[in-house]
């Protein structure tokens, strides 16, 4: 096999990185319309993973993830506006259900698409203040089926990898600048070794995420196993990166003012949604 990004993919990654940095801080709907206008929602799985990693890096506030990796794989199309899907059989903690224009419901008889405005939905305050999660209430018991798309797991994994990379970058920046005992913190081996472990965990999770996207793109028989691996690895990665990142940041990372908190929370939320690392390790063994 060949496991290098080709030139187009590298170019895409650079473009996405630059664009996301440029529109950062602008109103949410402007960011959303920029991403749509650039056709990012139509990207095939691997390219989508690259985009989502960059959006995860920026703690993206738009409904991109739910639209591209929840709604689209269930319906085989893109929604008018934004979309999401209920595919866990319960309707709990549905990403962006409170603001989606179209909601795809996975039922025992197949997929039913409902305008978001017609569903009774209650947004749930969650640990990540920028994440929209909602309970879809007006659905009868037994009316929903369970079938999480591989792409939804891969999308969360890619987002988590991006968030972890941001945590590492912020941490590196901090330990390079912060001087104690007359030396930058980053010159101490105890600090270096934690940073190195964060990097290895990110590389591992990113590789498995790209692999998962690739198996979806090629509809390889390993795709479901690969998706479990990606989601589990991203969860393991965030666990280590959260712990080391917050620890190395010292008291500054513990404040609301510091932006580190948004990325820690995005990474943590990605693990808790649609099954933690442990759940996907078990699912991998059972698959």
């Amino acid at each position, binding site marked *: 096999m060949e*496991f290098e990004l080709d030139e187009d993919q590298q170019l895409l990654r650079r473009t996405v990185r630059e664009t996301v940095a440029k529109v950062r801080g602008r109103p949410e709907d402007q960011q959303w319309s920029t991403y749509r206008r650039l056709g990012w929602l139509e990207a095939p799985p691997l390219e989508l993973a690259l985009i989502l990693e960059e959006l995860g890096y920026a703690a993206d506030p738009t409904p991109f993830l739910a639209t591209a990796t929840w709604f689209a794989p269930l319906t085989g199309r893109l929604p008018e506006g934004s979309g999401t899907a209920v595919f866990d059989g319960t309707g709990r903690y549905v990403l962006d259900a409170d603001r989606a224009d179209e909601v795809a419901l996975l039922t025992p008889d197949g997929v039913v698409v409902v305008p978001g405005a017609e569903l009774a939905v209650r947004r749930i305050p969650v640990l990540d203040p920028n994440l929209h999660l909602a309970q879809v209430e007006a659905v009868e018991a037994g009316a929903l089926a369970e079938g999480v798309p591989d792409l939804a797991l891969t999308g969360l994994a890619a987002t988590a990898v991006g968030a972890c990379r941001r945590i590492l970058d912020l941490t590196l920046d901090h330990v390079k600048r912060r001087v104690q005992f007359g030396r930058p913190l980053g010159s101490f081996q105890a600090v*270096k*070794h934690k940073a190195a*472990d964060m990097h290895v965990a990110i590389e*591992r999770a990113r590789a*498995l995420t790209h692999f998962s996207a690739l198996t979806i793109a090629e509809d390889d028989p390993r795709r479901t196993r690969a998706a479990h*691996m990606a989601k589990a690895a991203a969860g393991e990665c965030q666990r280590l990166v959260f712990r080391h990142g917050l620890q190395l940041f010292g008291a500054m990372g513990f404040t609301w003012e510091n932006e580190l908190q948004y990325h820690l929370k995005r990474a943590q939320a990605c693990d808790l949604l649609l099954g933690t690392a442990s759940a996907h*390790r078990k699912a991998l063994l059972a698959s």
Partner: protein
Amino acid sequence: MRLADDPEVADFRAEFSAFLDANLPAEGEARDRSRSSAHVPDWARRWQRTLFDAGWLLPGQRPEFGGRGATLPQQLAYLEELARRRIYHSFNPQGLGIIAASLITFGTEEQKRRWAVPILRAEITAALGMSEPEAGSDLASLRTRAVLDGDTFTVNGQKIWTSGAHDADVLLTFVRTDPDAPKHKGISALLIPTATEGVVRRPFGSIAAADDLDFNEVFFTDVRVARENLVGPLNEGWRVANGSLGHERTLLWLSFAERLEDLVQDAADVGAGQEWYATLLMDLQALRLLGYRQLGPDRDPAELSVLKLLGSEAVQSASLHALEAHGADGLPHPAGTGPYHHMNNEAFISSWFERYARSFAGTIAGGTSEIQRNIVAERILGLPR
């Protein structure tokens, strides 16, 4: 990025597969075991020569050195095919992969003829003299001294951890030839035949068994070495060391992938339903992916440290889990824990404890995990030294 092999690689793999099917030594022929990394039983010498003659020994080399000019992805496919069958191309891996490879890169024509080709043809075996009692991770501080007088070096000093030295015919030895130069600049590489007067080798047992003799101390007392045995220019041994090890490092991760693959098979029963077993599967997949990526052009060599860390620590962790999963059944030692393969019976003869203990070779030798973390932190993440 794609899942399938390049057609060039697929054809290459198929050709080598067919060669193996037609030429592998039969079980009855391959009874004698190799007792150290420079001891090659007669059948294995014949096998290595068969590979050499067919250009299947070091496929990346030119035909006169047992190769066929294979690309890096093809070399990887070659090693994967060997590993899948749990067979070796040589029982003197450092002789082949490091010493002969260094001679081909840095040696004179005469050195290639006299030493490299015989090592490749398994007529002689070679060991690598690098570490010293006071020079481990800080290899460049080595003190074994070689003084050039006319056309002869006189060598005094000591090496340690010299794998297979007691069974080797020649040692590629790194010595200090200019004690006044900065430490990286006063080192040279010498070929020292082990039969030379003044060379004393003392093998010592490993943690696995008193009679598991691979490590050696090697003492040099007024050992006289002809100048023609100098490999590369005088005082440029550090370049030789980096070049020869560098070649080996590119595909070093594969040896960890092979161990993980063995663990996937050999621990399948105790691993059933265990989350650590899922982690093992993920580590193996991730290591392969990152390894394949490293075959691409313009890769940063520091990324090899990521592969070594990931691979060596995954092997260690999975081996410990496998040992613990056996509970008191993990106590018997010696004991066998893997299937019998006539050309590679390491797992067959190793207890779970031994497999766990041996995993520390991965996290200590070839740059400890601590050194690898420093490399990642400083060269990839840009933290200050």
